[in-house]
């Protein structure tokens, strides 16, 4: 029996639930120092003086770092990481000092005592599509064309018998993993060790080595466990540099730095709000002739990040005339970054609600409308899809959800005081293998050790990578030891872009093959072989994506407008599923986060101050258990020999793609209210209630 496909329990599960798993901040070290950042209280300005004396005399304060006393970094190319280098303040909440003390309480108290004098400059923190300074970035994350233009969109729209032209908005979101961004750091014998909560120990090492001008081999990053990241730990943020700075200022003493929840709202990335001007043209049968999407979003003046929001609109449905654009407003705000399915997540909101609006306009079932617009090849590249089973996902989802009996009329079902409706949306996420991940297989004392510097951010890498290795070596999975989360193991790429299992798994399979080729089935103790992933040549010939269909039931209280979602059901086509237990967890987690985006999440940036004012988990609402009822994730038995040697596609992100649109479409079906800006809340549906 092969291990792949078995619902094995997490190898690290018992450690985590018993508290035995050590996270970055808990790393047992001797006599650590603790750090607390001092943050700017203006959104733009220049420091004229920093008064540290009161903090410095506090019993237990060891040091206060400011731009005057902090070391000069070797590289300040990444402005987000160039902390404490000059007097400039680029956003409210930016770090302007760091108090280092014997306890975390003293450090926090010391930070309160540091006073910063500054000249405040007029700041600008308000996103609008009407700004006259919107600009076209050179590319969008990570390296896609900013704009695309195929055919003649305007002419096609003008000629289209049916048009949908609407503007949709997604809110600003913060990743908010349960474990804050945290580091234990030690500078000893001219080497830096970072026990850091990160989605990639090797990428983190490379960045930190550059920032401090160290050879990479003198930086070690260790991260066995992560309490969630959702992209916000995919790239090192300022907190890691600060921890390393503090350690280097106090050689031989370990230092600890954990951001507070409030600090995470300005220092750990976020998803930009998006404004999506969507235009669809179709014939009377619902066949799309034109797809236009113009996106306006924000970036930080300090450092550009351009969310690739229009990407899915480029490839999702067939239409001969298509144009997409991205325009940015550079604001005096914290730096946006990756958040679960950057691009696809917000980018499947506007288009998938617009499809629902088109279906309503035409009187065509929204499932059927999507099926009618299924492209034969990737509209973007012209290449065939390596596999595309969206239609099957839609049909299987409709069957499981009970979509057939649906009355399309909005606002006509009242049950026990609740208006009831259902909605659907499609999901998509690219399938990629990152080049440059190396796995090593070694035979030790009768067992197989697999080493790869991967990171498990809660997804299940500790469990699924041995399954892949066991099958590749043709040995029981229990004979395989996996070693990850440390730069002492071979270089691996980031746990991001849903590439982890596919990439690291490919490296492991190839290393196992190399091992068997070299040593056969009767290796000796110490025999080892390794392999490194390369660019998948098939990616030039095929378009590679996972697809899915999500169905939602919404209930809106007819008196109060309270919105509840008793059912969410997703069907996904994501290649071969390595471990159904951890995979289901990933998909359910994504869908739940999508529900949270639909109904609750909303970072309220007060433009007068320039910071997010609801910056804690009491005020920034994420869906709680009582909001999450019957959520089901199913998948098709999909084979794809092109994506990688495993035939598996990434599943970490597709679950959040399309969910919010499905919920919004269900709310429309329930109430007749078409909400085009997220989240959908009581106040927005109230005017439509009886």
């Amino acid at each position: 029996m092969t291990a792949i496909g078995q619902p094995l329990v997490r190898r690290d599960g018992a450690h985590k639930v018993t508290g035995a798993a050590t996270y970055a901040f808990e790393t047992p070290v001797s006599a650590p120092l603790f750090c607390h950042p001092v943050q700017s209280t203006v959104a733009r300005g220049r420091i004229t003086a920093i008064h540290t004396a009161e903090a410095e005399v506090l019993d237990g304060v060891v040091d206060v770092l400011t731009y005057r006393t902090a070391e000069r970094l070797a590289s300040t190319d990444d402005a987000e990481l160039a902390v404490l280098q000059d007097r400039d303040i680029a956003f409210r909440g930016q770090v302007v000092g760091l108090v280092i003390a014997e306890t975390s309480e003293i450090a926090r108290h010391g930070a309160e005592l540091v006073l910063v004098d500054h000249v405040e400059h007029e700041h600008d923190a308000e996103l609008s599509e009407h700004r006259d300074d919107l600009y076209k970035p050179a590319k969008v994350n990570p390296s896609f064309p900013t704009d695309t233009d195929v055919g003649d969109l305007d002419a096609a729209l003008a000629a289209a018998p049916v048009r949908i032209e609407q503007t949709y908005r997604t809110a600003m979101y913060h990743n908010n993993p349960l474990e804050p961004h945290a580091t234990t750091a030690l500078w000893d014998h001219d080497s830096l060790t970072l026990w850091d909560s990160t989605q990639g120990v090797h990428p983190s090492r490379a960045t930190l080595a550059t920032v401090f001008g160290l050879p990479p081999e003198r930086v070690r990053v260790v991260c066995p466990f992560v309490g969630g990241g959702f992209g916000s730990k995919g790239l090192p943020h300022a907190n890691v540099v600060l921890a390393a700075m503090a350690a280097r200022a106090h050689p031989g003493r370990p230092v600890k730095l954990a951001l507070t929840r409030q600090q995470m709202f300005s220092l750990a990335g976020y998803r930009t709000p998006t404004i999506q001007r969507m235009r669809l043209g179709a014939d009377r049968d619902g066949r799309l002739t034109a797809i236009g999407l113009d996106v306006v979003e924000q970036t930080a003046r300090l450092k550009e990040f351009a969310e690739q929001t229009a990407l899915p609109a480029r490839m999702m449905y067939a239409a001969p005339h298509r144009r997409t654009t991205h325009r940015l407003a550079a604001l005096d705000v914290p730096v946006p970054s990756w958040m679960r399915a950057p691009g696809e997540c917000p980018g499947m909101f506007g288009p998938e609600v617009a499809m629902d609006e088109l279906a309503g306009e035409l009187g065509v079932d929204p499932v059927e409308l999507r099926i009618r617009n299924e492209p034969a090849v990737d509209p973007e590249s012209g290449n065939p899809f390596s596999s595309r089973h969206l239609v099957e996902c839609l049909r299987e989802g409709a069957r499981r959800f009970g979509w057939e009996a649906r009355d399309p009329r909005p606002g006509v079902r009242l049950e026990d005081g609740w208006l009831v409706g259902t909605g659907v949306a499609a999901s998509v996420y690219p399938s990629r293998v990152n080049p440059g991940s190396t796995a090593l297989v070694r035979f030790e004392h009768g067992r197989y050790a697999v080493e790869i510097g991967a990171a498990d951010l809660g997804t299940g890498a500790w469990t699924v990578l041995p399954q892949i290795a066991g099958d590749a070596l043709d040995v029981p999975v229990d004979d395989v030891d996996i070693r990850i989360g440390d730069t002492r193991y071979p270089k691996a790429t980031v746990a991001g872009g849903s590439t982890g299992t596919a990439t690291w798994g490919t490296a492991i399979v190839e290393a196992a093959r190399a091992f068997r080729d070299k040593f056969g089935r009767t290796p000796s103790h110490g025999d080892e072989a390794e392999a490194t992933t390369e660019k998948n040549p098939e990616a030039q010939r095929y378009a590679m994506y996972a697809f899915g269909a999500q169905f939602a039931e919404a209930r809106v209280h007819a008196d109060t407008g309270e919105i509840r979602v008793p059912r969410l059901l997703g069907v996904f086509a994501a290649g071969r599923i390595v471990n159904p237990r951890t995979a289901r967890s990933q998909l359910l987690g994504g869908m739940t986060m999508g529900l949270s985006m639909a109904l609750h999440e909303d970072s309220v940036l007060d433009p007068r101050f320039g910071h997010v004012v609801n910056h804690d988990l009491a005020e920034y609402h994420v869906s709680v258990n009582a909001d999450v009822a019957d959520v089901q994730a199913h998948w098709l038995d999909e084979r794809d020999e092109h994506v990688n040697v495993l035939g598996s596609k990434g599943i970490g992100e597709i679950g959040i793609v399309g969910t919010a649109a499905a919920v919004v479409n269900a709310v429309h079906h329930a109430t007749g209210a078409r909400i085009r800006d997220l989240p959908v809340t009581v106040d927005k549906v109230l005017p439509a209630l009886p």
Partner: protein
Amino acid sequence: MKPFTYDSPADAATAVRTVAADPSAVFLAGGTNLVDHLKLGVARPGRVVDVTGLTSTEITEQDGGLSLGAGVPNSDLAADPRVRSRYPVLAQALLAGASGQLRNMATTGGNPLQRTRCVYFQDVTTPCNKRSPGSGCSAIGGYTRYHAILGASEHCVATHPSDMAVALAALDATVRVLGPDGERTIPFAELHRLPGDAPERDTVLRHGDLITAIDLPAPPGDRQRYRKVRDRASYAFALVSVAAVLSIADGVVQDARIAFGGVAHKPWRAWQAEDSLRGARAGHEAFRAAADAELAQAEALPGNEFKVPLLARTLVATLRELTGGQSA
């Protein structure tokens, strides 16, 4: 967090004397709000006086009603069979608030004294008249979703966050207070203040006053309901809430006690709605008229206009439910 002296006195009288003698001293009970404020710098006491165990943790029969010891945890109060059967509006309000863990810690005396969750009050980097008198109100012109539509002032538009307090206001509870000059009682509806020009003062309590018990009179009506409206199904403060206690005979409202939550600086006793209801025939028109009578004085802020119709709808729906009517 500023260091402070921690006192754990032997009895309530000592605790009161200790706090009264030190302007920088505060009482600590369950700590569910104060500990947050210590970390955030919103509260910077020099002395923290722990009153755990110094007030009663018992619920006792008294004059046809109940006396609730200030030390009774919110979860115990919500679970008490006498409270559940005779004061369901109170049990419902308690269970609508916070989370199980917080209710285990929060106390009867402490819950009404929790402070507003106005995001600007809780952020020491923004002006706030309640936290720092004279600095200005950041909520006006800012994020107002959880802010007042009744009884606010140009100095403060914050709301009181407690659910329990809304039910207590409707039930005509009485607060027993031990102060430096001895014991006294305060009608619950008069415990909290409107902001006026002194929003730093949430209540009429003086420094050193300790709530020792809250007394409930005999239930003023047998039809009781607490209805809380929020975007999230749990663990969220009210956008609006309604505590309603009704007596009906032959389809006519004999008596009505109504209080609103989430809409004012204090639990808002809806006197005008009550007056409008008394003697009226129970039905949609009377309920709507009651809502209109109370909300004529409502003044919404940009960003929370929806709370006026939402509160009206919630009141009408709650009264309808209490009188056996169907939902919309």
